């Protein structure tokens, strides 16, 4: 009896989480524009989506920004995680405190703050400002993932390599980086998803005419939702599903899972 109750409870929550997604997927194959009647199977909204230049440009923008910003953030964040370890505890705490600000602050405040800064320095809003903003909020996630890996055993190995005559650069590349790799990968993946998913900060720092998937949806919803957006949702959901399954599958062999 108790087991059934548990099962039903989980079932209800899962239904609550997935019902909206299932609705979008079903409607994306609907022949008519109606949101309440399914009149027949059709792929025309997918056609419309792929031939819509605005949607395609938004998809391209989203991914170019996410890739460049997450790679930049990962490089800066990884070096920082190592560099911070060489500092005194007081300095470390100070810097990590500042690192936490974008994580804890509300997105709307971060977005506005960056907007004001760009305008104060006379930087006009465009693709570049979105990129800079995304790097800013991605770096803390990288540091959060990489820093726990910079531990005593890595440091001892690094010192041993130096004692044996390795140059700092050689020891860093051959000893430290391989040890940090899982953390770096997790940071990269986390930044990438955060960047793809971001709306609020992009909303404030984008210039006119630059759209990511999120900002495009926001402006489209105001004029009226077109089913081509359902097609886009379905494709995104399928991609996320495949990616998560892959990551889960790949990390099965190892102890630490990359996501979460």
């Amino acid at each position, binding site marked *: 009896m108790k087991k059934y109750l*548990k099962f039903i*409870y*989980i079932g209800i929550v*899962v239904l609550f*989480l*997935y019902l*909206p*997604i299932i*609705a*979008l997927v079903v*409607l994306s194959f609907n022949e008519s524009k*109606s*949101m*309440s009647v399914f009149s027949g199977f059709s792929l025309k909204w997918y056609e419309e989506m792929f031939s819509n230049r605005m949607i395609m440009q938004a998809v391209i923008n989203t991914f170019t920004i996410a890739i460049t910003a997450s790679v930049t953030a990962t490089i*800066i964040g990884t*070096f*920082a995680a*190592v*560099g911070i*370890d*060489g*500092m005194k505890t007081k300095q470390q705490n100070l*810097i990590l405190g*500042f690192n936490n*600000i*974008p994580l804890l*602050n*509300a*997105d*709307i*405040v971060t977005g*506005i*703050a*960056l*907007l*004001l*800064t760009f305008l104060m320095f006379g930087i006009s809003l465009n693709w570049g400002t979105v990129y800079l903003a995304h*790097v*800013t909020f991605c*770096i803390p996630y990288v540091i959060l993932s990489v820093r726990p890996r910079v531990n005593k055993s890595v440091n001892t190995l690094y010192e041993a390599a*130096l004692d044996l005559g390795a140059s*700092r650069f050689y020891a860093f590349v051959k000893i*430290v980086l391989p040890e940090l790799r899982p953390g770096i990968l997790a940071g990269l993946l986390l930044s990438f998803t955060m960047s793809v998913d971001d*709306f*609020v900060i992009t909303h*404030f720092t984008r210039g006119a005419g630059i759209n990511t*998937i*999120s900002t495009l*949806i*926001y402006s489209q*919803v105001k004029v009226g939702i077109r089913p081509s*957006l359902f097609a*886009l*949702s379905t494709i995104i*959901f399928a991609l*996320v*599903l495949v990616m*998560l399954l892959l990551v*889960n599958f790949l990390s099965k062999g190892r102890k630490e899972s990359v996501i*979460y």
Partner: protein
Amino acid sequence: MTYKKSLAVPFIIWILAGTIIPIGAIAYYGLTDRNENFTLENVLAIGDSVHLQALWLSVLLALISTVICFLIAYPLAIIMRNSNLGKRGFMIFLFILPMWMNFLLRTMAWQVLLEKNGVINGVLETIGLPALEIINTPAAVVLGMVYDFLPFMILPIYNVMSKIDDSVIEAAYDLGASTSKVITKIYLPLSIPGIVSGINMVFIPSLTTFVISNMLGGGKINLIGNIIEQEFTVSSNWNLGSGLSLVMMLFIIVSMIFLERFDKTGEDSFI
């Protein structure tokens, strides 16, 4: 021999330019008027009835969604904790997956469901039930908040729960404790760090959102986030927008300090 501190230099520059200066910019704009003279007017503008009402509604809706999220997530975390490892992984996967979908698409999905001619009303009509009219009401906004932020409550609580030693719970049962006693005397006190970070991760985004209220409130529900956003995008009154943002930041800081006091072992919280 340790690492060179200079490796962190690009990061420190980035903190300066991307975090410290921007927050200074908000403070500067918030505390000056259009002619760059010092004033407290923008901050005190929170006392205007429109702003006060929006702030009150934001706090109220955020509180309601946080409580609902907690009530849904807590039993779930206990169930997950007590199931075997293979099932756990699958359940985490199920609860994480929607979180990775675009936030705007998820909110849009609820609009599609709740709309006057939307999915739910279509289904209700075919089975002959009266239509549901909650779109553009605070209830729809709360629903959207719960949907968007529920995983942020489930994960930290589960995370802490999974670390509770089985033997502690077995001992309690062996000594004759009832299930409700085990929940209130064992699970609850031991999972406080997770609850605290869960509350933070649901309350603050709910309090500051303007997207959910805009999409599911149909422009009729004005939260403090909507007011600030409009000052920047519509009215271009950056000084007022910044002043109100300062008030909002104050609220965030106060709620964090408040929660921190409950969380003495904050070290292993989610963030």
